[in-house]
């Protein structure tokens, strides 16, 4: 087969994407394994133009792996999407450094730690919002109870880095302190909107993460 135009560029791009992927995620040993896989894939795709050096002799047989070249590109794209999405959460003020702290606690024994903690928050917070709404509607007003409920919501929101939720809870608490029921009502509506937005964003984020997680687990299992 003659050398096809653009093939060396494609090979370089595949290597670059693989290296990007590796630089984000992998140790040196994993990098070495990935590069070996990449050269095998290159050999399959472009057998006439691929000339591996002796130092990159590949002992893997093609049947020993099942990662088509397009999946590697998709993974790299997904990873970039996840990074940009998370950055937008911080830039738009939805999350703060506490979220990063939680992600740093993730390890092989708790690979989904952050998602689990966020799931607890998303399970607990609607109940608190409902209780707050119910308490606002009661007469006589019970600002002490309202303060206690929003204190819980503020605390758990703060623990996952939900800074907009936390700030709105502070506004609500200030209205409670002033015994300003109308202020509490308006603040509650904003809290509910912030909560709905945060829920949608985080669910999208973890949905993306789950798409890359099976690959990472498969790669780790080859060690």
């Amino acid at each position: 087969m003659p050398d096809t135009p653009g093939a060396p560029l494609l090979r370089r791009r595949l290597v670059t994407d693989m290296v990007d992927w590796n630089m984000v995620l992998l140790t040196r040993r994993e990098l070495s394994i990935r590069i070996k896989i990449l050269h095998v894939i290159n050999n399959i795709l472009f057998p006439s133009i691929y000339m591996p050096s002796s130092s990159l002799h590949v002992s893997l047989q093609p049947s020993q792996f099942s990662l088509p070249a397009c999946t590697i590109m998709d993974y790299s794209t997904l990873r970039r999407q996840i990074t940009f999405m998370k950055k937008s959460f911080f830039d738009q003020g939805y999350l703060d450094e506490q979220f990063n702290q939680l992600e740093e606690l993730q390890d092989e024994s708790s690979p989904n730690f952050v998602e689990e903690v966020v799931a607890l928050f998303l399970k607990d917070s609607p109940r608190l919002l409902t209780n707050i709404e119910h308490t606002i509607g009661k007469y006589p007003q019970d600002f002490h109870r309202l303060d206690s409920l929003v204190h819980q919501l503020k605390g758990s929101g703060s623990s996952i880095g939900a800074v907009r939720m936390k700030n709105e809870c502070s506004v609500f608490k200030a209205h409670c302190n002033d015994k300003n029921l109308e202020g509490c009502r308006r603040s509650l509506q904003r809290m509910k909107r912030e909560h709905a937005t945060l829920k949608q964003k985080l669910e999208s984020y973890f949905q993306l993460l789950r798409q890359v997680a099976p690959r990472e687990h498969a790669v780790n299992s080859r060690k």
Partner: protein
Amino acid sequence: MMSCKGLGGEGSAAAAAALPHVLAVDDSSVDRAVISGILRSSKFRVTAVDSGKRALELLGSEANVSMIITDYWMPEMTGYELLKKVKGSSKLKGIPVVIMSSENVPTRITRCLEEGAEDFLLKPVQPSDVSRLCNRVLR
């Protein structure tokens, strides 16, 4: 009640049992999960309960608790009340107690420290806070 092994699932039960055992007390499920995760990452064995009452039940049945870390503001029994009960018990008074709170109230902090609390941490608790604290208290 949540129990988290400090070895990430690996190692024998005997090895896990040799790790310092920290009792975490918080009525918030989110905060229990976070403090348990932080303690686990620092290689501690963690038992998490949701109230002071459950904490005392566990302390009564199992003496092998190296430290208690408790939220201040809990229904029925506050962390301060739990602290007083622990320090008032001849069996439990030697266990270090750390209080956590999301509110920076100087009189509250002073009161807890005077009652014998080892430290007072502001929420959200950082891994560095817990690591520094446990190194000082437990090692």
